[in-house]
């Protein structure tokens, strides 16, 4: 097939690996991004996979993808469209062609384009015609037959041989981008240390792909030079791991042992898995019988003096609602992490959305305020998990941390922090001087109560879900209830004094302020940066503290002619702002497709307002 054009930019490039969910595309993408990160590129990744572990082979529903965006400058998003698409079967082409830049490069395994597979993918006749593949730089490599040939002397079964297809494709991509094979080969040596034949097989397949691409001169190799990133030691980290580590860091800084009580749920499970593996740091992880038991055990551990955490996703947060109320009533510290996914109900388990905001803020019976935070990049999940734990402990309150599927699974290079640079966390233990211990006596400034942990002599007390007096006696006195409701409300409101101001990215005044929260950060920043470069008076703010809101919101909002709230739901944050700051008018940019925004979508909508 003739080469039509090459549209790959030199500053940055987006590569999408895709295939059947059993084809190992997540691993392939991870290995590629690790190599790029070590080389010094900045990058962001976005795994996109089906909920089914092995959906029917060869169908569009079973396609698993992993997108990497790497560049010579700072990379904020995994990219809208791929410059290079690796598609291991017809279904992968079918599913991803709309995410591939017109005229971009598509690498396919020619051997998999059988009549049967083409039909399974939903093509009626010929993919080349139906998807205009001749308008792309199509590299149709006989990957399956090449690995069969390359590995024929290794005495492996045919199935094992075919499983190295992904490494052949990866080898091709490495040649295209002038990358070394060293790090990936080291990975094989570590991963298969007990199966030397697999080290050999994967190395051969990887090299075969590399040399194949060189031989056919698939494309002029492209170099993307390292990004000017700050000096220091780096590692690659996903949002879920960063969340887990932020909690661990907070436990260390608070001098507390970490407890996590959770029930597996996509896409939050990675947090429980990571913490279950961290017994070396003394984590007590408890896989509960259900979501409710997860949070209730956490509340029990908090009562008994641990840093208590439960992790979940939307439907699980719904199940935990009553128990969150119990933690509000008993005024115990607990961090609840909601890795948002498409809802309602089971919804779209593996897809991303920002539609649990109002549930987090208000989804409970009674006057039931909690602190709500949201992370906005995979790496700042560390920061906000740490902050969530700090606020929970120091203010004796439940804190909900919102992340989402996109942040949870996305990875970025991360400059490793040093523990000495993180603030200490001070648990407000009840003091021996204040005996007798009064359970609901409050810190005059923060209004938080003091923590008396079972096992401490002379501080025996009872707390629970029933309304109490300051002394902890059950009370139905109307005035007492109103007093306690007010205390709990004000306690959360006063957290505002101990959170940072909102920062505007761009000019402090202008025609349009793009407002967002959480995981839409990168797309907003890119869209606003591009519009600024085009001369528009546009700025961006990202809210990470949702309840309470930072103190300077009004000042910032009042300096822009228009405000547009950009979020992956039907307008939950916009409505929250309408309630909190009704004096402003809010435009909205919304999307509810289970996918992040594209930069262009945001730009186009902003342009209509400029």
């Amino acid at each position, binding site marked *: 097939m003739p080469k039509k054009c090459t549209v790959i930019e030199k500053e940055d490039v987006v590569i999408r690996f895709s295939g059947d969910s059993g084809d190992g595309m997540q691993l392939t993408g991870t290995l590629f991004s690790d190599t790029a*990160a*070590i080389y*010094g590129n900045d990058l962001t990744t976005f795994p996109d996979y089906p909920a089914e572990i092995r959906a029917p082979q060869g169908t569009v529903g079973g396609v698993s993808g992993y997108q990497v965006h790497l560049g010579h400058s700072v990379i904020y998003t995994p990219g809208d469209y791929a410059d290079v698409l690796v598609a291991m079967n017809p279904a992968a082409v079918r599913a991803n062609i709309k995410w591939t830049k017109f005229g971009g490069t598509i690498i396919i395994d020619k051997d998999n384009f059988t009549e049967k597979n083409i039909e399974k993918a939903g093509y009626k006749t010929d993919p080349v015609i139906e998807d205009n593949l001749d308008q792309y730089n199509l590299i149709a490599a006989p990957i399956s037959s090449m690995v069969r040939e390359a590995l024929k002397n290794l005495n492996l079964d045919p199935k094992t041989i075919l499983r190295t297809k992904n490494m052949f494709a990866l080898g091709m991509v490495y040649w295209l981008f002038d990358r070394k094979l060293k790090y990936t080969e080291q990975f094989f040596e570590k991963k298969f240390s007990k199966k030397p034949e697999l080290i050999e097989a994967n190395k051969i397949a990887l090299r075969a792909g590399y040399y194949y691409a060189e031989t056919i001169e698939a494309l002029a190799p492209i170099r993307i030079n*390292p990004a000017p990133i*700050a*000096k*220091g*030691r*780096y*590692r690659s980290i996903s949002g879920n791991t960063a969340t887990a*580590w932020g909690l*661990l860091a907070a436990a260390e800084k608070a001098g507390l*042992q970490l*407890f996590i*009580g959770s029930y597996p749920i996509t896409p939050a499970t990675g947090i429980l898995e990571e913490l279950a593996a*961290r*017994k*070396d*740091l*003394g*984590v*007590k992880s*408890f896989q*509960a019988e*259900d979501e*409710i*038991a*997860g949070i*209730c*055990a*956490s*509340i*029990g*551990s*908090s*009562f*008994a*003096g*641990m840093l*208590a955490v439960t992790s979940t996703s939307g439907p699980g947060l719904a199940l935990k609602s*009553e128990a969150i109320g*119990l933690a509000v009533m008993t005024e115990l510290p607990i961090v609840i992490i909601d890795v948002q996914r498409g809802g309602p109900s089971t919804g779209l388990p593996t897809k991303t959305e920002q539609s649990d905001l109002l549930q987090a803020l208000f989804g409970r019976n009674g006057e039931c305020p909690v602190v709500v935070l949201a992370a906005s990049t995979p790496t700042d999940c560390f920061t906000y998990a740490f902050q969530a734990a700090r606020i929970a402990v120091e203010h004796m309150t439940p804190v909900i941390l919102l992340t989402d599927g996109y942040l949870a699974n996305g990875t970025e290079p991360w400059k*490793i*922090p*040093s*523990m000495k640079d993180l603030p200490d966390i001070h648990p407000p233990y009840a003091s021996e001087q204040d005996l007798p211990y009064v359970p609901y006596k409050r810190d005059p400034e923060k209004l938080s109560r003091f923590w008396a*942990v*079972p*096992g*401490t*002599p*002379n*501080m*025996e*007390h*009872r*707390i*629970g*879900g029933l309304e109490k007096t300051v002394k902890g006696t*059950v009370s139905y006195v109307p005035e007492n209830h109103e007093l306690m409701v007010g205390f709990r409300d004000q306690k959360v409101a006063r957290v505002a004094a101990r959170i940072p101001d909102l920062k505007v990215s761009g000019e402090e005044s202008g025609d349009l302020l793009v407002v967002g929260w959480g995981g839409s950060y990168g797309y907003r920043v890119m869209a606003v940066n591009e519009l600024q470069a085009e001369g528009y008076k546009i700025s961006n703010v990202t809210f990470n503290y949702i309840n309470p809101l930072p103190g300077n919101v009004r000042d910032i909002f009042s300096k822009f002619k228009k405000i547009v709230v950009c979020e992956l739901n039907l307008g939950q944050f916009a409505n929250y702002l309408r309630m909190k700051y009704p004096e402003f008018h809010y435009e909205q940019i919304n999307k509810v497709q289970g996918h992040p925004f594209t930069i262009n979508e945001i730009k186009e909508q902003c342009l209509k307002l400029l």
Partner: protein
Amino acid sequence: MNETITNKLTPKDFKSDQEVRWCPGCGDHAVLNAVQKALSELGIPKEKFAFISGIGCSSRFPYYMNTYGFHGIHGRASAIATGVKIANPELSVWQITGDGDALAIGGNHFIHVVRRNLDINIILFNNEIYGLTKGQYSPTSDKGLVTKTSPFGTIEEPFSVGELVIGAKGRFFARTVDANVTLSTQIYIEAARHKGASVIEVLQNCVIFNDGIHEKVTGKEVRDDRTLILKHGRPVIFGKDNDKGLILEGLKLKVVKIGENGITENDILVHDAAEPNPGIQYMLANMKYPEYPVALGVIRAVPGPTYEKELENQIEQVKSKSKIKNMDDLLNSGSVWDA
């Protein structure tokens, strides 16, 4: 629990300053007394006790105990107690629950706390009715019971607590009667000393909504013949004149009279609470009047590893092998590079 206490505690030390608000005549009063008595004999300092409850009449119990206490939400006491015990295995953790709290709304948590064998003592007040919501049938109500939500009689088979505990791989099950403070105190002490989840079913009388529900078995006039108190290693003998016993006939228990048909005391089944195979204990736990006497006392007590200790052991093992000793180690572990 290593500290020696110089002053022995008395039941009074465990009474809180709260006024006990159960109905006069309610069986809960007697349970409270027996528990306070048992606790004073355990030699454990007061601050090391934690009482965790769910919702229901009995779940007000922690307020009346001068210990650490947590009054939870409906059905979730097992889960809350699990967190407390895992957090601090040195605490003596007691879960107070009822037939609705533990077996209906909290059924899932109940079977799993038993299965995991956390060292928690669970006192299950079984009055076969919902009291706090004023008289609806519960999962232990006899089939056909007429209540406010079953005006024509229930059409459900009830749970048997012992059967459920054994089915959930429970290692300690005992049964007592609210009014029998002596037996109850002994059982609570044994439960506290047993390492692992201990479930004690208390046949408890709700004086308002289900008055006398256990009376046909536990009433003063009839109890000697209609109940039997099991003791580990002793023949299973009961009756006003200590002349009745149980034998195993085929695969079933049978009530026999000593001295009749050539039966002597040597033929009577000897109770083995420590036998891991729960077969006979299961039959004993399920005995129902009038075919059998109702078994009281410790029916099953088989030691086994507890969840919280296994967890701590695992943590120690991993810690001793891992190079990661603190957060800085973790942050710099694995694949890192310098820019």
